[in-house]
Structure formats: structure tokens, C-alpha cells
């Protein structure tokens, strides 16, 4: 009987030691220096199983291509990683598939009323442009063109720019100087005739 008892105790002890060993090896796994065999194996390499844009593109079929148009290679080079839909279009609610009232959008809007123009108050315009301004800082914009400064409170970016242009630049940047001037005139003439009181 004693033999059996001893055998059981030894077994339990052995098991315990095994358990402790096993536990300790798991615990130290992270800190232990990686050995070559482990590095070569693909078994433990974690891969993202989900692109954050994957879900978006299920419904918005061409969205990814649209995004890569003007925010593609150059941006990836600048940021070191790809730009994702939600980085700009954040605050997506649970009811997104039903309706999309909460997604941040960047449609053309201006502070003064105009014919066929969407009007927004100054705060909404500023919050809309704030996101763009994180990369396109006011300093950089000022350097590129003075008109950014004077429209900071008065127009959203997409008033003049096509944010998701297809490859080549569209909007104001694609126009020759003469047409750019015409662009200014069109808009200013519009709200000057709508609202003669001025400011």
C-alpha cells in the first residue's frame, strides 16, 4: 500500500512540478530571448485578421479606391502607414447601417448664404476643417496659398477642393490661373448678390 501511496504522491508531485514548470515557461516566454527556431516559424506570428476599412468597403464599394486617389501613396509615405476611412469619417454610430446621421462628413459649405450653396455656421465650418488641419496645418496652407487664410472661417475645404479626387488633382488645383480667378468670382458674386448687406 505504501508503494502505491508513494507512487501517487510522487506522481502528484511530479505533476505539480510539471504544472509549475509549464506555468513558469509560459510566464517567461515573453521575456526569454527569442530563439531562431521560433522566429522562423510562422506559427506564432500575429496577423491582422481585419482591415479597418474592410467593413466600410463592403457597402461603399469604390470607397477604397476613392480614398487612395488623393490620399494614397504620398500620404502613406508621409505617415508611414495607410490612411483609413475612419481616421476622417469618425463617430460612426451603431445605427450606421440604418441611417448615417452621425458620421463626420466634409461636404461643401460656406458661412454666407448663396444660391444652391449649403450654408453652415462658423463653428461647424471650423470643426469640419479642424480634422483636415491636423495634417494640412494652417501654417502649411498659408505657405501654399494665402486664400486658405481668409476662408478659414468661411468655407469648408471641399468648397474648392475635391477631397477624393480620382488620381489626378481635381477642383481648384486642377484649374489654370484664369479659371481659378473665375472660381473666386463665381462664389463671391453669388453671395454678394444674395446678401447685399455684406458682412
Amino acid at each position, binding site marked *: 500500500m505504501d508503494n502505491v501511496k508513494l507512487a501517487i504522491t510522487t506522481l502528484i508531485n511530479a505533476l505539480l512540478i510539471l504544472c509549475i514548470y509549464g506555468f513558469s515557461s509560459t510566464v517567461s516566454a515573453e521575456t526569454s530571448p527569442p530563439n531562431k527556431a521560433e522566429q522562423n516559424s510562422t506559427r506564432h506570428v500575429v496577423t491582422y485578421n481585419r482591415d479597418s476599412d474592410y467593413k466600410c468597403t463592403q457597402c461603399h464599394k469604390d470607397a477604397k479606391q476613392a480614398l487612395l486617389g488623393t490620399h494614397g501613396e504620398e500620404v502613406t509615405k508621409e505617415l508611414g502607414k495607410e490612411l483609413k476611412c475612419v481616421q476622417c469619417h469618425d463617430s460612426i454610430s451603431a445605427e450606421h447601417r440604418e441611417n448615417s446621421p452621425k458620421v463626420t462628413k466634409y461636404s461643401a459649405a460656406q458661412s454666407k448664404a448663396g444660391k444652391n450653396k449649403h450654408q453652415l455656421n462658423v463653428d461647424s465650418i*471650423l470643426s469640419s476643417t479642424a480634422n483636415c488641419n491636423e495634417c494640412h496645418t*494652417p*501654417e502649411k496652407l*498659408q505657405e501654399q496659398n*494665402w486664400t486658405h*487664410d*481668409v476662408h*478659414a*472661417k468661411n468655407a469648408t475645404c471641399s468648397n474648392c477642393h475635391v477631397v477624393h479626387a480620382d488620381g489626378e488633382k481635381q477642383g481648384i488645383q486642377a484649374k489654370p490661373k*484664369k479659371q481659378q*480667378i*473665375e472660381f*473666386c*468670382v*463665381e462664389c*463671391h*458674386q453669388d453671395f*454678394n448678390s444674395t446678401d447685399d448687406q*455684406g458682412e
Partner: protein
Amino acid sequence: MSCTRRDLLIGTGAIIFTTGITSVSSRTLAAVMSDGKKRYGMVFDSSACIGCTKCTEACRETNNVPEGVSRLEITRSGPIGEHPDVKYRFDRTSCQHCDNAPCVHVCPTGAAYKDQATGIVDVEADKCVGCGYCLVACPYQVRFFHPETGSADKCNFCRDTNLKAGKLPACVLSCPTNALVFGDLNDPDSEINKVIANNTVYRNKVELGTQPKLYKIADGKGEIKR
């Protein structure tokens, strides 16, 4: 004096036609009928100017001004302030149509002259020999040699183009913000005189005795740079 029904009808028609036009569009030449000597002048409202330079473009097209030179320039200074309240100031550089014009006084051939009927300072290109005396004599530095004709050239309020056709100068017509007012300074009821009376205006370098006819409304952003 006899007045037939036909004459009367034509007369009333003419009156309706002319008054009708002026009431429909306030942006045609204020006084089309000749009523004595005119003294054309201009107001540049820098508080309304947005610096789009459409005026420069319009002038270029209307008066066939080649690239590289310009009768009219909008200069921008700034930036003033911090984002999102950055502002710029705009100024117009063009002929001031001085009543006492230095260019006219110095011109050796009389090619530079002031038109007595309108007060417009103009250049008779054919008489000009291209000595450049007027270019250096103009304190506003608005004259240049036309690259094609070799004559001195500058703004003449579209005297031979739009004005001749009964229209306002091209810059005035094209301005999207109505920052330019053109009219007869001799007419007390003209729009330009009302604008001058109701605003604080200034003119450049009046201390030189040039008596310029380009008035400016300050933009309300700091000191006026005369």
C-alpha cells in the same frame, strides 16, 4: 412749335427706354447724355476687395494688354493675425488720372495729355516716341512701355473701349464684390460722389500736388499706407 402724335409717342418711348434702362441695372454708365464737362474718377473700396484680381484679367482682355505688363495691379500685404483670423490688405495700383498730372507736364511731344471733356489722362500712342520721361515722372509708377507698340501705356478708364461703347470700365464691371465705383466727379448726384461723401476716403501722395482722381476707402485694418 408743332408736336404731332407720332413725335410724342417716340418721345415717351425714348423716356421710358432710357429711364427703364437705368432703373433695371444700376451698373451702367450713370450719365450717358452729354451735360457739360465731365471729370471721371474712381473709388477703390479696399474693405470690399477680396484680391481675386479679376479686374486685372478683365482689363487685360478688354484693352489687349499683353502678359508681362499691366495697366492695373492689385497688391496684397499681410498676413495679419493668427489662424483662423488671418487677414490681408489689398491695394490698387493704377493710373490716378491726376488733374495736375506730372506725366502730361513732362511729355516732350504732348503724347501724354489730359482729355478736357472727361478729365481722363491718356496717351496718343502715335505721338509717343518712347523717351520714358513720363515713366520716371509718374510718382505712382503706373506707366510702362507697351511691348508691341513701344509707346507709353497705362489705364485710361477704358476710354477707347468700354467707355466709348457706353459701358463702365472693364475692372468696374468685372468686380464680384462691387469694390470699384466709377463716375463723374462734376455731377453732384453721381454715385461716386455719394460714396465719397459717405465714407472716409483718401488719395495717394496728394502732398505732391498731383490732384489724383482715384479715391480709396480704407480697409479698417491698421494704418493707411499712402
